């Protein structure tokens, strides 16, 4: 018995157990990791290459400033309506979603009893999982008609009677338009913002709360003086990431914004965003210049998303707090 053990122990190791086993494993991991890096670069390169036709034709600035999008007759393409549509809907959605989302985060983290907090949190996660198209179908058949009947029409009728000069700003109340899309976008990013707020609040050390309580603070004062300042970096970067989500959100917006490709936009009236125009026209586009212009919109979307992500990362780094928990 003993001899066999000894024999086994003294047997030369199989190759993979010696140095090259580790080397091989590392190489495979690095290749797979590199493929992600390659993918990110490929995305930038492909979008750049495919959009070169349009960018050469109109110039980068000319394309971004162009107010006309005419794939049918004159073949002139300008991105400004979509840049504008994306910015208005995303900023609007974030403005609507920001405070309620933080409120839920605070309520779940600080006020709700454990069982209720768990229910709300699971519900939020569940809602965040609803696919965009499913929200879209609800928007098309339920929300947009309802808004038209209960909100847009009354406002429109009021404006027609009392302030006809406002009518072009208010826009045709068909139900599908910028306001509808903005509200739906807000609903869609609330769960995401809430989850990120909740994570940020979870990071606040217990000691910080206790220190505030020990000074004789009420619960709200504890939140204001210890919890929110500590979590502000996480909350802020979460809001910016949600903004990035809103910018890239495609299907529900394409289903609800009404898809009007040229200025002027109005408050209730139809409009378009960068993702929505790509979804609507890419499948049917035949002209090379048209396809290339849609790719150029994609490139603009890429650059904006990149900037938004980098800002969020920068904020996390800048506001990350090292003190307060331990030295």
């Amino acid at each position, binding site marked *: 018995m003993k001899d066999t053990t000894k024999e086994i122990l003294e047997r030369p190791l199989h190759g993979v*157990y*010696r140095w090259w086993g*580790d080397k091989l*494993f590392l190489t*495979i*991991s*690095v290749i*797979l*990791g*590199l*493929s*992600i890096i390659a*993918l*990110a670069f*490929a*995305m930038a390169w*492909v*979008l750049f290459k*495919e959009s070169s036709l349009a960018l050469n034709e109109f110039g980068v600035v000319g394309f971004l400033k162009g107010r006309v999008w005419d794939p049918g007759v004159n073949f002139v393409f300008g991105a400004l309506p979509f840049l504008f549509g994306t910015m208005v809907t995303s900023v609007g959605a974030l403005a609507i979603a920001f*405070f309620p*989302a933080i409120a*839920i985060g605070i*309520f*779940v983290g600080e*006020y709700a009893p454990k069982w209720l907090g768990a229910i*709300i949190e699971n*519900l939020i*996660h*569940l*809602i965040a*999982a*609803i*696919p965009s*198209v*499913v*929200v*879209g*179908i*609800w928007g*098309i*058949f339920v929300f947009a008609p309802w808004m038209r009947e209960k909100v847009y029409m009354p406002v429109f009728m009021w404006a027609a009677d009392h302030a006809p000069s406002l009518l072009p700003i208010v826009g045709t109340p068909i139900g599908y338009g910028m306001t509808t899309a903005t509200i739906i976008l807000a*609903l869609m990013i609330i769960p995401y913002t809430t989850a990120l707020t909740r994570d940020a609040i979870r990071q606040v050390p217990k000691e910080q709360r206790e220190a505030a309580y020990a000074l004789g603070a*009420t619960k*709200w004062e504890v939140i204001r003086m210890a919890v929110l300042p500590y979590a502000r970096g996480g909350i802020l970067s979460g809001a910016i*990431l949600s903004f990035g989500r809103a910018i*890239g959100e*495609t*299907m529900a917006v*394409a289903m609800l914004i009404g898809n009007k490709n040229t200025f002027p936009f109005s408050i209730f009236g139809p409009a378009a965003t960068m*993702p929505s125009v790509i*979804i609507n026209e*890419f*499948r049917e586009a035949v002209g090379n210049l048209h396809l290339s212009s849609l*790719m150029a919109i994609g490139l603009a*979307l*890429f650059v904006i*998303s990149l900037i*938004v*992500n*980098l800002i969020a990362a920068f904020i996390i780094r800048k506001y990350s707090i090292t003190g307060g928990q331990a030295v």
Partner: protein
Amino acid sequence: MKTLRRRQIQDKIMEGLLVVSTITVLIPLVIILAYVIYHGFGALNWSFFTEELGSPARAMQGQPTGLVHTMIGTVVVDFIGLIIAVPIGVGAGIMLSEYPEHKLNPVLRIMNDTLNGMPAILKGLLAFALIVKPMGTFSGLAGGVALAFVMIPIIARTTESSLMTIPWSIREAGLAIGLPRWRVVLSTVMPAAKTGLVTGFLIAFARAAGEAAPLMFTSFGNNYLPNHWTGMIFGPVDTLPQRLYSLAISPYAQWHQMGWAAAIVLLSFVIILFVAARLLTRQKNY
């Protein structure tokens, strides 16, 4: 000077405000959920699961139509995506967590987060340029690749974080008995992190399964089941999210009904995946 009473009233007001805004936000979100469930189940019928869609005329004449080809297509395309995404995502996750000293590590982390933050529609455009254009046709393969682009960064992240939860002492114990590093990772760290890894796959899969944007110009859509199974991979394929969009914006009332049915099937599919993922994580906590 604020009196204690005033401060306490303020405290109560804030609590009230928080409760009220929580409720007002949750109500519309729950309404969406309830509406889709109610309408969707109402629109479901047997032929939905057995028939092809066919031309709009078929539905308008009241003939039985369904989305059987769509459901098969969804499974095929989603699994193509998963098969491509898992090895790449796990490999990158291993590099992130097991080789923190590697000099490409920070670059990979930034690039992975960037890719994750990119709108899904751009991943569709990328797959279009990389697969559809050279192949000259829309295909299930292109759709799968586009979905893989959605899943890869998620899997890399979840793999990294679940491997990181395994304490370094376990790795050191393995190294101390003379195991090489690859063996430590494969036979001690990965098995210990098994639940976390699978949870990550499920989350990524569920996220990708709900995406329509990357599929619109990759797998494109198809009203019929392909004649031969290879058509599922090398020809245009129907998938639930993309079909749901087409049905909803179509002008036919019958198709709208079918859209609700597609919505409930898609929603159930995604929610089952998410619930499975959450149950798994809960199990891990025990």
